[in-house]
């Protein structure tokens, strides 16, 4: 709860700074504010509490994931200075909306009531509609926001309908009460409840970008300004998957039968389609979009196979995925700025001109592909272990096959950077940015080598 309040205050503060025309203060204040909110979040560790009649429940799971979200936001904001360096217009609105979106995301990780979930989702989504279109002059940005908005509001209708049906059958929005209702049903759920449940799943799946509700993702990711794409790909995805995970863990306590198969099948399709479609993408940004779709599929494994271990698995996965993705977007920002596009050919020969950046992108790609001993491997390993513990052998085999396919596209930037000849133009990168990139790379390696720092947490 303190996190939500702190972030809200931070958002308002940012807007005020804008009014006071202190543009140069924005980022320092934001970064500081994020650190403070992170600290505030962490102070609640091991002290589970609920607020406002269990509208908000703060427990270790929510704290851990909130921290991941804020940390991801921190990493993204650290890229912002470079991304917006040529922009003269005030940026307080964009930053403020991002902070509010982050607030919504945090709400989604700590809701105890479906009303809160809805509010979190909408806070996040409405902010994102704005952010996606924040590059008003670019037609692609316009298209992205239109698509995102139309599909998003359309699907949130279904989400709402689902909530209404659940409410109708269980008589409450409260997760605790719903879980009591579920227990009372003892396996025989009325169709209305089931319909509500599945509509809820569908609504959340849309946000996570799960097949067949993933269609918006590649187009919107591509059209959205890169910095905000990074935000969507990490913060939004993490928040949504956690929301879904939380709903099931709190409501069903391990009763799988009803929704297991559906999510199972969706996971399979997401992994396969995401990876297969990624193979042929000619540009890095769109490739990352498909990569993020396929990772949604992997994350679903944690939902399917939920067990005491899967908390940790999901935490590690979201963390490693977020860092690696943001790191990749960090390079992408540089490329786009220097070359005006993000085709793989723009990366040609980067290993010679910018060895550090090439190395960072390589590590991030390898991590996403799940190659040991990087964080991505550890995360996948945990997830697979969780799923196998529950006996989802075939699901894991599909996931593994997906990983194999994914190597095909994760290696394309590496091949371009190391094996193709460059045009010799060096990207100029300031030291802080380099340090930041290197920091993320180091994180990827360290999380891979010392995963127990993350894993024992929840």
């Amino acid at each position: 709860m303190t996190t939500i309040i702190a972030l809200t205050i931070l958002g308002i503060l940012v807007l005020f700074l804008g009014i006071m025309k202190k543009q140069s203060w924005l980022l320092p204040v934001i970064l500081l504010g994020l650190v403070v909110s992170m600290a505030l979040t962490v102070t609640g560790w091991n002290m589970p509490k609920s607020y406002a009649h269990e509208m908000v429940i703060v427990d270790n799971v929510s704290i851990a994931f909130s921290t991941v979200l804020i940390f991801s936001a921190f990493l993204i904001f650290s890229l912002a200075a470079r991304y917006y360096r040529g922009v003269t217009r005030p940026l307080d609105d964009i930053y403020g909306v991002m902070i509010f979106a982050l607030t919504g995301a945090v709400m989604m990780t700590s809701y105890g009531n479906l009303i809160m979930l809805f509010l979190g989702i909408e806070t996040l989504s409405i902010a994102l509609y704005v952010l996606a279109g924040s590059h008003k002059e670019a037609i692609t940005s316009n298209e992205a926001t239109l698509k995102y908005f139309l599909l998003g509001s359309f699907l949130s209708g279904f989400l709402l309908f689902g909530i209404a049906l659940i409410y109708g059958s269980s008589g409450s929005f409260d997760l605790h009460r719903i879980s009591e209702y579920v227990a009372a049903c003892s396996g025989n759920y009325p169709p209305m409840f089931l319909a509500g449940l599945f509509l809820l799943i569908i609504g959340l799946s849309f946000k996570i970008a799960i097949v067949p509700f993933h269609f918006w993702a590649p187009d919107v990711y591509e059209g959205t300004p890169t910095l905000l794409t990074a935000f969507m790909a990490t913060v939004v995805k993490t928040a949504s998957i956690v929301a879904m995970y939380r709903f099931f863990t709190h409501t069903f306590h391990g009763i799988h039968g009803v929704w297991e198969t559906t999510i199972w099948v969706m996971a399979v399709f997401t992994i396969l389609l995401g990876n297969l479609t990624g193979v042929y993408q000619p540009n890095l940004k769109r490739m990352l979009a498909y990569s993020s779709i396929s990772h949604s599929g992997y994350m679903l494994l944690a939902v399917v196979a939920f067990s005491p271990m899967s908390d940790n698995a999901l935490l590690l996965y979201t963390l490693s995925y977020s860092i690696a993705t943001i790191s990749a977007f960090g390079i992408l920002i540089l490329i786009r700025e220097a070359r005006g596009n993000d085709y793989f050919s723009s990366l040609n020969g980067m290993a010679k001109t910018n060895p550090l950046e090439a190395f960072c992108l390589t590590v991030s790609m390898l991590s996403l592909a799940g190659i040991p001993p990087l964080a991505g491997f550890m995360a996948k390993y945990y997830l697979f272990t969780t799923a196998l513990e529950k006996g989802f052998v075939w699901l894991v085999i599909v996931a593994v096959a997906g990983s194999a396919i994914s190597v095909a596209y994760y290696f394309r930037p590496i091949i371009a950077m190391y094996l193709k000849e460059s045009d010799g133009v060096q990207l100029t990168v300031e030291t802080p940015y380099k340090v930041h990139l290197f920091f993320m790379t180091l994180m990827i390696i360290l999380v891979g080598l010392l995963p127990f720092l993350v894993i024992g947490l929840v």
Partner: protein
Amino acid sequence: MTLIVLLIPLFPLLGFLVLGLGFRAVPKKWATVIGTGTVLLSFIVSMVVAFNLRYFAATLPGFSFDWISIGPLKIPFAFLIDPLSVVMLLIVTGVGFLIHLYSVGYMKEDPGYNRFFAYMNLFVFFMLLLVLGANYPVMFIGWEGVGLCSYLLIGFWFKNREYNNAAKKAFIMNRIGDLGFLLGMFLIFNTFGSMSFGQVFAQAKSMPAGSPAIVAITLLLFVGAVGKSAQIPLYTWLPDAMAGPTPVSALIHAATMVTAGVYMIARSNILYVLAPATMTVIGITGLATALFAASIAIFQNDIKKVLAYSTISQLGYMFVGLSVGAFTGAMFHLTTHAFFKALLFLGAGSVIHALGGEQDIRNMGGLRSRLPKTYWTFLIGTIAIAGIPPLSGFFSKDEILLHVFEYSWPMWKFAVAGSLMTAFYMFRLLFLVFFRDFRGTEAQQHHMHESPPVMTTPLIILAILAAVGGVLNIPEIFDGGSRLSAFLAPVFADAAAVTAHQVPLPHSTEWLLMGITLAGVAGMVLWAFNRYVRKQPVLLPDSARRSFIPNLLTKKYYIDELYDFIIVKPLDRLSTFLHDVVEIRFIDRIVNGVGNMVVWTGNTVRFIQTGNVGFYMFIMILGIILILFLNILI
């Protein structure tokens, strides 16, 4: 004290190492001393060992270390000294030394002089290992090692592609045999739990005759012998092997290496007598080879090729001897053959040397006067090989023939036929080379000279040996002592115990057989004299048209062409086929196909992403309906 046995192979090895490692730095003079001296030293030590045989045989193994040792598999690096190995030792080092000595003259001008002696020493080393080994694996070391040296020496003049091909062919054909040897060894180990001669033979004694394991073992080992000793069907490498320098042919491809197969079977005599089926196979192979090779030799015009086919034929005789249980006879023939065939080769080398490399007997003739020492020694060799008494060949061949007669009368007839052919082609060779007028070029005639003493001395010594070698084993019928038989008897005692004791032939029969053979040989010699000395010999060029049988024989029954057609070419084609079709078009295409399929699928499914919002909504609704329908209504 027994360790001096070690010196026997050690000297040539040292010689090889010195010449091999410092091959250019060693001056020629020293190379000569080292190259020949080491073999001489070995010979001397061998003599010491031979004359103190009882002492050595009783106390060995005084030295052994475990070469390979895993649980029950123990392969010590152990040597065995017994009469059989001593005989071989003396041949290898003795004849080997003479040939080394001869090479000093023969190879004098060659730039690869040091290399030549290094290889030769290495060969002697491996041959001695082969002979001395106290178990099959150590024998196999020598067995393969001599193959290597044979390869190196056949291809000694490695600029010539033909020679290299010949060397490669020899090595590969030997390897085919070696595989048989190897598998035979494995089967021995499988059957007896050991590979050392002592244990294997001791256990074999108690096995019933004709047991499948022993038949299989002996057949597999015989495959090895076929390769090494150039029997049908693996003989074609030997004529080609004449590409090497002539001393090599004398040492490796006449006196020692090619007889390794005979030695190995004689060594394993107990196994063979227990496998009558194998013996039959050996007999048929040997006899067929003897006749086949002899018939080819009649029509060859290359002096060394004639001798090569003659060697194959004589080896066939040895195998025939082995197959009828005449182990001593075979060993005796091996010994005398070593003398006279080495002599003949060296003689041929002397001729070639004199004529500046000419090998075609159609371009020779009348060398008798110009090369007297060569002529006389060659003559002795020819008489010896033709089996004319009292030279050595007569006794050894006669012993084999006698046993063959005891064994089977039809086989004897074939064997005698072969012997007659031998007489014919050898005298044809002699007459064409040394009689009538010289048919070569002016330059050759001018250049022609008798070889230096360093070459003729070995010729003379070998001629003496070839002449009197028979005394080693003069049969009882001539009031001889059969000394070699007595000497080797302990080795073959077990085998002799197994074979049924036949009543010795009456002396009258023996005389009769000898008479028939000798008459035939005499006839052959006269016929050859008639054809090639009295009349002007008819010598057709290679391209001339011949009637069917002479053509077939000149062309060596087209066996090389046949092998080329049924093995080499198909293998090449198979190789190309496997690579171009199976590998690239099939296996790799499947692999790439999987990859391409993924890419293709990726490229196809991405078009679902039409960019059209309405379409997206439609698909999503379909998805929603599907999920609800499947989960709730069903």
